């Protein structure tokens, strides 16, 4: 093979890709080369000088991290010169490093300890007094710096500069007085700062939250997922004493690339909160009292039954949180539709956005596919705020050569990394997007082959955007025509191109039309259904995609009810119509709802203070609140059911790229709390149905059997790294991009005039 080089490392012969550095090559050969500054995700700097190796025909020793393999290279990592040099480096490093391992949070999992044990000399000859600093100093609320321990590998600063793209942390001074620091009075305020703690090969950067909480040997670890946003970063939950003590990254190259944002990393404290609900409660007069599960469920079932029988199922509403797992969501909708008999079911409290007409309603490509894009249009999306780790991926794509086009009135974080930043006036996003469509049509940059073969309705489109000339668009958006021209050209000719937008953009009028135009742009340029080319409507909540997939909203195809014989049943008994969340809240204010089941949702907490809403809730005959922490709605509840947090249960979440990933129980739920799916199951049984799921995987098996996009998925298949739906029917493997296979159906350009394009 031409692109492989044969190298011999400590007598082991391996073939590795050309251009690979020796540290990685040795890893492939099963030889460990000790490192401090080297990290596979960062550019080599050769600062720590730990990774010396000897290479035949090369004088002296060289650093493995900065040396790339060449064919026929013979490497020795155990040469006496190497051993001496490495001992020397460790002696230098330890000269000023305090031996306070017993109080250091890194002690026990410290690369410096390990490398000293593995490669260091027996004693130090350093007799001068050690360097002393005031310690620790807080770099931020989250991160503490112990300068005595720092070995100046610069991993933290390099992470910030190369991956996060900022200089919120820097290096000061010179020579032996070099320190990691920020400008005095300035906080280390990167939204990704926590990664530096994990990167630090010593205990120089430590977490203020984890400080002195545990030692590595009294920690229990469990794989899990971050549930703070829709990226679905993989985490390792470290627990001690039935408490989460920290979250660490569990690298999943396809999802998070090994990084976590600070919101995810440090946002676990709710799970440890002393006020966690641990006991079901029922209302007794004006106050709630603790009850056993049987009683609480009986009361809840009675309340529901009473309302259904007296006022009809149309007066019952079910609101669920899009952070709940697929299993919970699926059972919740079954309970609502098949058991209670209502379609007043939603995961949103605000009106639904207009979405792309393409079905299924999901991102067409994958997160990792963005790295293959040459152009990325970021339309009214701010991943840093809503999908932070995706922000890193987009920066990575930019560093790999993708041209970013940011369209946003605000200066988003990505604007600084963008080739073009278009700033349309507020409310003119749709004009701008249609202007781009116009330009591509006018300049003949249409991917004609794709349009002919895969789409329909281009003539109507042509007519609709005929008036959106660059001059007019420039006048109404304030974006100069040449910039529009450049953007259109990049999008159409510098392929593959991906279009990323916030799915909630469709909630505003101009955004709704822009979302539709974005679909048109993707279809016109043929940028859909391939690696690097795709349409990414970014959802926000951890399992919002799951809620969409499982039909957790009215007037959307719902999963069919399974037949009692286990096969696929029909939609019998599923009531049509139904109210959305926003409509339910209106009905509530008007006193038209009589019973409400809140699963992980608290309208009083999530919406601005609303007297009418409070009165509506007070006026309910039955208010069942299922949550993990107390909230204002609970004060009005008739029954309170304690649920389990993400790390206390089994289940699956579907992230913004359709990846179904698993949750594992790291702890038992506190007190008598139960996983949400189990509570719904128990409530359904209390209502007299024959729900029979012994464990979460039974629910998931049913989801896989009735939801077409989830067909073929099992917990085993989902595994530790997750699977993107849909699976290929024949091979059982991930099918990759959506809309890849033309099939019979053609993809339609925006079917209706934008002004009437409200869907849902």
């Amino acid at each position: 093979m031409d692109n492989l080089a044969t190298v011999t490392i400590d007598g082991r012969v391996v073939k590795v890709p050309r251009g690979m550095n020796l540290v990685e090559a040795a890893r492939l050969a099963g030889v460990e080369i000790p490192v401090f500054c080297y990290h596979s995700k960062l550019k080599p700097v050769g600062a720590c000088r730990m990774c010396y190796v000897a290479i035949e025909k090369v004088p002296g020793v060289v650093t493995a991290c900065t040396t790339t393999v060449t064919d026929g290279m013979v490497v020795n990592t155990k040469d006496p010169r190497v051993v001496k040099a490495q001992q020397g480096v460790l002696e230098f490093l330890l000269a000023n490093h305090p031996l306070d391992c017993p109080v250091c949070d890194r002690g026990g999992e410290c690369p410096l300890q390990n490398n000293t044990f593995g490669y260091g000399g027996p004693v130090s000859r350093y007799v001068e007094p050690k360097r002393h600093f005031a310690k620790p100093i807080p770099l931020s609320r989250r991160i503490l710096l112990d300068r005595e321990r720092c070995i100046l590998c610069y991993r933290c600063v390099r992470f910030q500069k190369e991956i996060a793209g900022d200089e919120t942390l820097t290096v000061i001074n010179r020579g032996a007085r070099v320190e990691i620091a920020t400008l005095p009075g300035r906080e280390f305020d990167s939204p990704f700062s926590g990664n530096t703690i994990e990167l630090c090969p010593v205990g120089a950067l430590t977490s203020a939250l984890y400080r002195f909480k545990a030692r590595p040997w009294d920690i229990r670890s469990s794989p899990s997922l971050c549930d703070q946003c829709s990226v679905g970063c993989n985490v390792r939950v470290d627990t001690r004493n039935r408490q989460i003590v920290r979250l660490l990254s569990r690298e999943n190259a396809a999802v998070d690339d090994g990084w976590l944002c600070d919101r995810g990393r440090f946002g676990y404290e709710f799970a440890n909160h002393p006020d966690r609900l641990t006991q079901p409660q029922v209302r007794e007069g004006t106050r709630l009292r603790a009850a056993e599960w049987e009683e609480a469920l009986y009361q809840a079932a009675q309340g529901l039954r009473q309302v259904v029988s007296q006022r009809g199922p149309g007066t019952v509403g079910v609101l669920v949180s899009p952070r709940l797992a697929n299993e919970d969501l699926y059972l919740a909708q079954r309970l609502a539709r098949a058991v209670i008999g209502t379609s007043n079911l939603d995961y949103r409290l605000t009106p639904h956005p207009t979405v792309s007409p393409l079905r299924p309603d999901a991102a067409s490509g994958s997160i990792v596919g963005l790295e293959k894009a040459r152009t990325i249009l970021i339309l009214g999306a701010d991943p840093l705020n809503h999908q932070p780790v995706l922000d890193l991926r987009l920066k990575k794509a930019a560093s790999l050569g993708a041209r970013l086009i940011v369209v946003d009135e605000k200066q988003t974080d990505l604007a600084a990394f963008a080739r073009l930043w278009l700033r349309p006036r507020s409310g003119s996003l749709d004009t701008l997007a249609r202007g781009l469509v116009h330009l591509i049509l006018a300049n003949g940059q249409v991917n004609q082959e794709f349009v002919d073969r895969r789409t329909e309705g281009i003539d109507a489109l042509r007519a609709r955007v005929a008036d959106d000339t660059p001059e007019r668009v420039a006048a109404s958006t304030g974006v100069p025509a040449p910039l529009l021209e450049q953007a259109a050209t990049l999008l159409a000719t510098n392929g593959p191109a991906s279009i990323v937008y916030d799915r909630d953009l469709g909630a505003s009028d101009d955004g709704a039309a822009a979302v539709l135009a974005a679909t048109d742009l993707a279809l016109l340029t043929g940028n859909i259904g391939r690696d690097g080319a795709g349409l990414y409507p970014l959802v926000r909540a951890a399992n919002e995609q799951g809620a969409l997939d499982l039909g957790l909203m009215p007037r959307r195809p719902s999963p069919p009810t399974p037949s009692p014989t286990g096969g696929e049943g029909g939609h019998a008994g599923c009531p049509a119509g139904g109210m959305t969340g926003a409509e339910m809240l209106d009905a509530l204010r008007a006193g038209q709802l009589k019973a409400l089941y809140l699963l992980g949702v608290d309208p009083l907490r999530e919406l601005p203070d609303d007297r009418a809403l409070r009165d509506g809730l007070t006026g309910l005959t039955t208010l069942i609140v299922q949550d993990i922490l107390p909230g204002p709605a609970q004060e009005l509840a008739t029954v309170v059911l304690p649920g389990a947090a993400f790390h206390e249960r089994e289940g699956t979440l579907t992230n913004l790229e359709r990846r179904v990933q698993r949750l594992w129980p790291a702890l038992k739920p506190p007190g008598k709390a139960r996983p949400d799916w189990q509570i719904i199951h128990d409530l359904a049984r209390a209502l007299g149905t024959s729900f029979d799921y012994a464990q979460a995987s039974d629910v998931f098996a049913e989801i896989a059997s009735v939801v077409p996009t989830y067909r073929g998925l099992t917990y085993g298949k989902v595994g530790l790294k997750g699977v993107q739906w849909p699976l290929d029917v024949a091979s059982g493997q991930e099918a990759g991009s959506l809309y890849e296979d033309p099939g019979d159906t053609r993809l339609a350009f925006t079917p209706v005039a934008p002004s009437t394009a409200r869907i849902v």
Partner: protein
Amino acid sequence: MGEVGCSARVQREAMAHDVAKDIAALVKGLATTFKHLGRPATTVQYPEEKRPVSPRYRGRHMLMRYEDGLERCIGCSLCAGACPSRAIYVEAAENTDGERHSPGERYARRYEINLIRCIFCGMCEEVCPTQAIVLGHDYELADYDRADFIYTKERLLVPQPTKGPTSPPTPSPTRGGGWVR
């Protein structure tokens, strides 16, 4: 059958031999008794009286202090890690200048040993970087309630030296067991 009859003499002889042996044994046994009759008793009147234990005896644990009264324990949990029966529980916290328990940054807020689990192997003592946990000579550990066998820090910590700390301690490069701060 004849064999039985012919053995009568043999039986008689054997019996005489046995009697002689019994008597000899009796005499021997009584000799020991008589020999000890005049000697002082070795039984100790426990609990009024106690036998001394060897210096290396491993009894109930103690948490030691420095001369200035500061706790030696820094809450590092190495003892808990080394304990083969997982009998030790440590919860660390940070010293502040206002409330200082030990030198350096860290001290043990909670330190508990479950003496029912403990097998008195001394690993904790061995591994302690500050020589804070020491197995003492106290072996009278019976109690009425299982919960009372969980020895808390307050019970384990040796009392403050009679003259209290004269000045706030300053961290020195080395102190206690060669542990370098």
